[in-house]
């Protein structure tokens, strides 16, 4: 079985490597999730200001962190794919987008459901929520652009440009929104402003962040494997895989 191995080495070997790694990351995600949720609901004390409602923090903040982190990672891989013409990195970038968009949505949703009891409205034009909303638009833009292009190579490169333009703009947007927010003196109550956050709260948040991180890796690996198969379906190694030669 020596056909074309070198040419397709990188996506093919990633395919198998990812397949082997997925179980480990899944287990890690589940363990972190269990520990994190235990801390979130059983060991973290009641907040003296917000009562029990603050427990939304354990999903809201990790989701928000992850949504921003994933956009940067996505832009990074897309940029690498554009600069060095490595198909695998572009495929990973496309695999990241849906998970990133999902966490952005989740951060918005939980933000609204936290805002309602705290501020009395579902939505406030607070700097964080607004930036998160714009981040959601950026994810949607990236995904719709890639979906509209049939040629995968063009889709990769065009996506990379818009992701990079987005990543350059995120700090500018964030800064502008902050400025706009202070100008209008909207709801400036920060959700995480408790002066001394209990250790349990902080550790719960961090562990939940790890859980969310591991979950993202699992989803991204699974999706990247599907994208590899889609793109490489005419290659020798995929047909060998189909025939079961590569068992």
């Amino acid at each position, binding site marked *: 079985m020596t056909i074309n191995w070198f040419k397709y080495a990188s996506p093919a070997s990633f*395919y*198998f490597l990812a*397949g*082997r790694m997925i179980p480990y990351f899944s287990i890690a995600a589940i363990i972190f999730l269990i520990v994190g949720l235990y801390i979130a*609901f*059983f*060991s973290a*004390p*009641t907040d003296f200001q917000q*009562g*029990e*409602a603050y*427990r*939304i923090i354990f*999903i*809201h903040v990790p*989701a928000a962190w992850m949504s921003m982190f994933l956009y940067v990672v996505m832009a990074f891989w897309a940029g690498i794919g554009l600069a060095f013409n490595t198909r695998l990195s572009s495929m990973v970038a496309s695999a990241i987008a*849906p*998970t990133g968009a*999902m966490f952005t*949505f*989740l951060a918005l*949703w*939980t933000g609204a*459901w*936290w805002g*309602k*009891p705290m501020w009395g409205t579902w939505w406030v034009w607070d700097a964080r929520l607004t930036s998160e909303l714009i981040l959601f638009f950026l994810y949607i833009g990236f995904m719709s652009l890639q979906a509209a292009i049939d040629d995968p190579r063009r889709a990769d490169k065009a996506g990379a440009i818009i992701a990079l333009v987005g990543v350059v703009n995120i700090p500018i947007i964030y800064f502008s929104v902050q400025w706009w927010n202070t100008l209008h003196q909207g709801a400036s109550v920060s959700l995480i402003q408790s002066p001394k956050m209990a250790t349990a709260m902080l550790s719960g948040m961090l562990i939940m962040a790890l859980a969310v991180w591991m*979950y993202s890796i699992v*989803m991204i690996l*699974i*999706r990247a*494997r*599907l994208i590899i*198969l*889609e793109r490489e*379906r005419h290659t020798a190694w*995929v047909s060998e*895989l*189909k025939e*079961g030669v*590569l*068992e």
Partner: protein
Amino acid sequence: MKWESVSDFFAMGGYGLYVWGSYLVAVLCVIGEIIAIRIRRRTLYKHLGLRKRSILRGEK
């Protein structure tokens, strides 16, 4: 244990709707993502002309 009873736990000090509303949607998002991936995988396998799913797992 900091909760007096199960109903106390679900009430979340009066904020049950908001707390559970948030976590429920988080669970739904995860389920939705998993379903989306499954659908994508199924169409891909159909496209590749495969009947047995396990073949493409690629694990030894």
